[in-house]
């Protein structure tokens, strides 16, 4: 379970939000909403431990994430704004590196399968620089199919640049992850086709 209490975020000299609290139980999907610049991405980065909060606690399984960083990061999958794709490598090489760097030893066959499932079967060996925005996005998202054992998925604008069918597939994958006891926290401006509308956290309500 993820618990956040009294969280405050300072960006430059500006206090973005304060006293933010949230609680995410196994099987829940949380959509972080709010206008541009209200601090959605900052909140996600705080929750992953990439950024340090100005004040407040973030706990995973009742333990502070800064104390138990390695155990927390073994159970976390974060896909940020930048897709973490290197232009000189093929989608397959990028995906295998992303998994190995995260500590998942996976076979090439499993990576190929994930890329085929996300619709990149014909682009496996092309350098990533010739891919379109949406295709690059998909290379990053392919990790979702290989990270079922990671409990907490934190996704920053996962639906950006995807076509309608891909959005539906992704929503399906997220719902399945939650059904299997996982947790998903995401930001999006689109109305994603979730069967059950997700719980919404409005960061704007905590703005200063």
């Amino acid at each position, binding site marked *: 379970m993820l618990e956040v209490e009294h969280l405050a975020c300072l960006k430059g000299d500006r206090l973005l939000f304060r006293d933010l609290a949230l609680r995410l139980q196994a099987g829940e999907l949380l959509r972080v909403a709010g206008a541009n610049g209200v601090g959605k991405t900052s909140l996600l980065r705080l929750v*992953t*431990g*990439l*950024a*340090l909060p100005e004040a407040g606690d973030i706990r995973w399984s009742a333990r502070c994430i800064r104390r138990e960083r*390695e*155990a927390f*990061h*073994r159970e*976390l999958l*974060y896909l*940020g*704004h*930048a*897709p*973490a*794709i*290197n*232009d*000189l*490598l093929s989608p397959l*090489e990028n995906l295998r*590196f*992303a998994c*190995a*760097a*995260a*500590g998942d*030893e996976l076979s090439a066959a499993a990576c190929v399968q994930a890329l085929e499932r996300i619709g990149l079967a014909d682009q496996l060996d092309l350098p990533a620089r010739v891919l379109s925005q949406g295709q690059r996005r998909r290379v990053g998202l392919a990790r979702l199919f290989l990270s079922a054992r990671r409990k907490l998925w934190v996704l920053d604008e996962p639906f950006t640049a995807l076509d309608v069918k891909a959005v539906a597939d992704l929503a399906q994958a997220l719902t399945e992850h939650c059904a299997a006891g996982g947790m998903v926290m995401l930001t999006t401006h689109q109305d994603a086709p979730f069967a059950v509308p997700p719980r919404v956290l409005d960061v704007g309500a905590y703005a200063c």
Partner: protein
Amino acid sequence: MLSTFSAVLRRDLLLAWRGRADVLVTLAFFVIVVCLFPFGVGAEPNLLRAIAPGVLWVAALLACLLSLHRLFAQDYSDGTLEQLLLSSEPAALWVTAKVLAFWLSTGLPVVVVAPALAQLLDLEQGALPVLVLSLTLGTPILGLLGAVGAALTLGLRGGGMLLALLVLPLFVPVLIFGAGAVEAELSGSGATAHLLLLGGGLAASLALAPWACAAALRISTD
């Protein structure tokens, strides 16, 4: 345990191979800087022989500095750095892998070419092994110290210039003992003391720099 380490090492070496033009530019820079000296100070063999150790070392140092900003810049802008920081392995481990790959792709070629350039400056044959050894021990220190500077200046405007200002003073001891080793060998007093000091410096920076670099990366990505 070392899954992140070996993944980063393999990927960075593969990237160095795919982008080998960058590596060749560094090497060409090294060669050209050394070749400029005979034009500047005149082709007097005794003079060139006297300045050869210093010239070769300064040129190697500048070549290393030229490519340092590449160490993290690409990974920072495409988001790979964030993913690496979220790895469950200690960041100091994969930072070491990145510096090792950096040294293999920029330091090692410089070490390999240096004896040929030493011939150009008429350095005594007997001093060549010491030159190669001092560069082999010294250039990894440059990479390790430089990595801390590169991590601190990541994402800053004009970061390249700042990086040079930040790390060049730190390179001075390496330069003194590196060039000093070759000169000591030439003067007949033996290079052992200098080389031992360089070795000690390498051990110390290998033990400390990756941790400092990892901390600097966390600050830069915050």
